[in-house]
């Protein structure tokens, strides 16, 4: 009887060798499945051996059964492992096939950009809003009344000649300065509701022939602060903040100047940020760069707006946005702002906030 057992055990060994070899050599999952059926299926070789158990002694059946089960488990483990290896290999093959030349360029969408004058304008607006200024807009087609007369430039005033004007009719003109916004706001402001603090950005026009340094259209920003206690020291402090914010300059120079709508009037120069004052083409070898005009609001301007100049006073300043942009970005032709070459426009994108 033990012969039978030995025979079956020997057969089992053969099956083990045969199965292991086949699993090792299996090239795909289908083959592995065939192997599983061949050895472990209902008519598989291991099942056959179990069927042969009736031929051996009952006391040996247990041993054989254990051996068969152990081999089945081994096969199952090997097949699982082989399956996993095959999956892994397939993934590897697929990934290899999907390989890209990552150095080829990507498809670039078109990126928008702000105009450089708008960058300068927005930056200044935010700066002033942070200090409590309202941003105010006024008409570009101004009246003689607001553009000149309210600003202490009566008819026949010589300073009118300083600003070559595009007239539309006897009373209307393309504004030569944003100062008209001052007059309008002064007229409307209710001081019982608090001080007046405003900036007014916008386009202005002068009858100049266009060249590298002149443009018949450009942009200004007007600033105005009026209340009961506003001093020239406050103006100086405010102008210093502007210089520092825009040009990073801490050294400024105020020079006496003349504007009909302010008294005293000053112009502010900043230390040349290019040469530090030694002299260079940007500062025309003067060491200083003129950046804006300002002053204490002329009493006539206040009185024209029916504000008591004995009680109220303040300061005003005017900034050329084109000039700021020209200085800040070393632009050498003012016409570049208005011809809108796409290469010119897009380079300033990185300056946007």
């Amino acid at each position, binding site marked *: 009887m033990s012969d039978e057992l030995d025979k079956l055990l020997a057969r089992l060994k053969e099956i083990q060798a045969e199965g292991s070899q086949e699993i090792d050599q299996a090239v795909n999952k289908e083959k592995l499945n065939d192997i599983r059926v061949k050895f472990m299926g209902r008519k598989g070789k291991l099942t056959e051996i179990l069927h042969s158990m009736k031929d051996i002694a009952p006391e040996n059946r247990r041993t054989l059964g254990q051996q068969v089960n152990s081999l089945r488990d081994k096969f199952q483990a090997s097949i699982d492992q082989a399956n996993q290896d095959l999956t892994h290999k397939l993934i590897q093959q697929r990934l290899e096939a999907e390989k890209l030349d990552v150095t080829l360029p990507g498809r670039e969408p078109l990126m928008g950009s702000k105009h450089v004058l708008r960058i300068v304008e927005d930056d200044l607006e935010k700066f002033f809003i942070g200090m409590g200024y309202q941003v*105010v807009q006024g008409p*570009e087609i101004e009246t003689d009344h607001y553009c000149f007369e309210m600003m202490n430039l009566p008819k026949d005033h010589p300073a009118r000649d300083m600003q070559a004007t595009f007239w539309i009719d006897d009373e209307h003109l393309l504004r030569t300065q944003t100062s008209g916004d001052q007059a309008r706001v002064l007229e409307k402001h209710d001081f019982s509701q608090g001080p007046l603090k405003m900036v007014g950005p916008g386009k202005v026009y002068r009858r100049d022939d266009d060249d590298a340094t002149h443009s018949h259209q450009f942009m200004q920003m007007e600033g105005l602060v009026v209340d009961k206690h506003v001093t020239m020291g406050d103006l100086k402090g405010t102008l210093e903040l502007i210089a520092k914010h825009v040009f990073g300059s801490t050294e400024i120079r105020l020079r006496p100047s003349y504007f009909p709508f302010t008294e005293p009037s000053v112009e502010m120069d900043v230390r040349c940020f290019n040469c530090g004052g030694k002299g260079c083409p940007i500062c025309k070898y003067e060491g200083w760069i003129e950046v804006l005009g300002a002053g204490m609001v002329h009493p006539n301007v206040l009185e024209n707006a029916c504000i008591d100049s004995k009680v109220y006073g303040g300061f005003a300043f005017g900034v050329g946005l084109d000039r700021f942009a020209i200085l800040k970005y070393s632009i050498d032709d003012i016409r570049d702002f208005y011809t809108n070459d796409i290469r010119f426009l897009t380079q300033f994108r990185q300056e946007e906030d």
Partner: protein
Amino acid sequence: MLISYNWLQDFLQLQVDPAVLAEKITRTGVEIPTTAHPMAGLKKLVVGHVLTSEKIEGTHLHKCQVEVGQEAPLQIVCGAPNVAAGEDVIVALHGARIAGNEKIKRGKIRGIESNGMICGLQEIGFADKVVPAKYLHGIFVFSAGSDVKPGQDVYEALGMDDYIFDFDITPNRADTLSMEGAAYEVGAIIDQKPKIEQVVLKEDGPAWSDKFEAQVDPKLAPKYYLRKLTGIKIGESPLWLQTRLWNAGIRPVNNVVDATNYAMLLTGQPLHAYDAKTFAAGKLIVRQAQAGEKLELLNEKELELDPQDIVIADENKPVSLAGIMGGMNSEVTDETTEVILEAAVFDPTLIRKAALRHANRTDASARFEKGVNWDNVQKGIDVAALLMRNHAAATVDQGLLKATDQQRQAVVVKTTTSYINHVLGTELSGEDIAKIFDRLGFGHELAGDDLTVTVPNRRWDIEIPADLVEEVGRLYGYDNLESTQPLLPETHGGYSVRETKIRRLRKLVEGQGLNETINYTLTSPKAAKLFTKSDHKLIKVAWPMNSGRSALRQSLLIGLVNAVSYNFAHKQEQLMLFEQGRVYNLDDGKYNELEHLAALYTGTAAHHNWQKLDQPVDFYWVKGQLTSLLAAVGIKDLTFKAAIIPGMHPTRTAAVYAGERYLGFVGMLAPVLAVKDKNLQGHDLYGYELNLEALLPLMTTGLKNEPAPKYPSIERDVSLLVDKEITNAQVVDCIKANGGKYLQAVHVMDVYDGMQIEHGKKSLAYRLIFLNKQATLTDDVVSKAVEKIDAALADQLEAKIR
């Protein structure tokens, strides 16, 4: 005005470095952008005395022996026509540097040894416009009595050792347009009282004024003084006087003209000299010109006079354009022996307008239009007369004829110490302030806080307390002002709602990949009328620079087209540009400014790529951009209607409506634009233009959250065959009208009118989305809705459902 440092020494004791002084004046009074030092960079320029000068045959050259204070004279070859023995000249020695940093070396000219160069004034740095006429095309010759010795440097004799400040005055500081005025200003700055000398003039000729009649309208000339000088010998002015003129930028002419110019530089009072023969009849009239009168000016300009012009006339005709320039017919010539000398104050506005009208501004008119010192008229005329007496052998006839002589009272300004401190933000005492007025030479009275200041007529710019604040502020020094921030109640800064909305739109468009442009407002009248649906009146400027910039734009697209054209010309063809700005029109006599937004697209929707996944920009792409932009600001129910707009493609343009409200248009730009502008040829342009005045009120504010739906939606596709003329809008309207309350959205899936379709028909496919926000929707409900839609489409649009 050019102010000489050396001349200032006549009035002040200046020990400070000129550059330091210039900076101080700039910070305190008048900007000095540049200070010139004429001898800077020059070397080895000496006076030479020409001993002999012989012509070199066959050339225009002379061989000269020139004494230059060395052991032996130098041989110098000179090409100037006016070189001659006996002259004192400017010699550039071997090793000299002349203008333009040019080096002079000994050498040979035409084989003849030359040990230097005899120079003209321009060669040592003088501007053409100041060189006396006789030396303009040759070497400079020192006049007799110039007190120069061979071998000495030329700089001092020619005034080149000077420092010349360029006083860039503002219109209110014309008081510094004279040496005396500048001396007062600089004196106040450095705290020195300037020494201003009075003129003592001997009148040793006969009395003349009672025999001469001057008829002067005091409105035209509130002051009008005349003197007569006789026995004049016209000649060259002394060198010291010439150097002061040319350092002030004025060309020396002769001893009479120079005297008037010198007196003007000194006192600020313009003067004019007439040949006395002009008024031989003994009568001079100051009046306004009559229609048709003509006058030839000294610069040979022929004028048709305007009735507003002030003229000086004899009994028949104008002989001078008052305050601006004399006439040819009264000119002082080399033969002149007697002159009538004029010093006046003319009406500033009339002078300014006449100078503008005739485009003939002069040093004199510039002073009259900005005002002159009424108290210096006599000094001006007396200085000029004295100089002619001293240097032109003139006899001054007895009597100063004052045809008009209005007086101007000194201005008295009342203010307070506290007001001045309040405006400046300072804490100056009354005494501190009084000291500043002392420096300025202003009279003042201090009584407690009250301050009364008497302003001399030489400072006619000062009228009101604010003017005094400026004087105190600038002399105290703006550098000394403490920088502070306004101590004010808190204010809330920001944009108006409208401005916020406009900025939001700009940001969104930028986010869509468009580049912002800023274009000119002024364009041609033709261009100004393009790209606008309504037919408003154009606004034009009265006096344009050219017709291309004569009208105000009515659309932004016209500017964008120009920008695109410019870029095409520079080989930039991938463009998505926008502008947000104003357009302008005239409506019922009212000038309107409307905020608009426009975009222009050409090329592909993204940069070209090697994968060839380029998507050309077309109508639907741009329409999609516009639709998503408006959706982003809450404007969703848009209607697009085919429209005709000047400048747009007539069959590819749609007017855009939100409800009944016209917002603008979108479409392809008319290909015909390329006929006029060759740069546009071969490019398709698409764009839109929106009127923000209509759009801004529709932008959402005060949004409330709507929760995302919790129940699934159901999709159904509908395919149909309709007549080709049926539009998508008709189909969608019909679907929506019949889709029931759960129909959420209708998407076009396909449009086909190709080969397989019956002629005159097209096939459309839609995807319908149904959703019940409150409960799960059943197929049954949806099917019923679709059935209703199918029936309506078949009934109303004769559609065949497929």
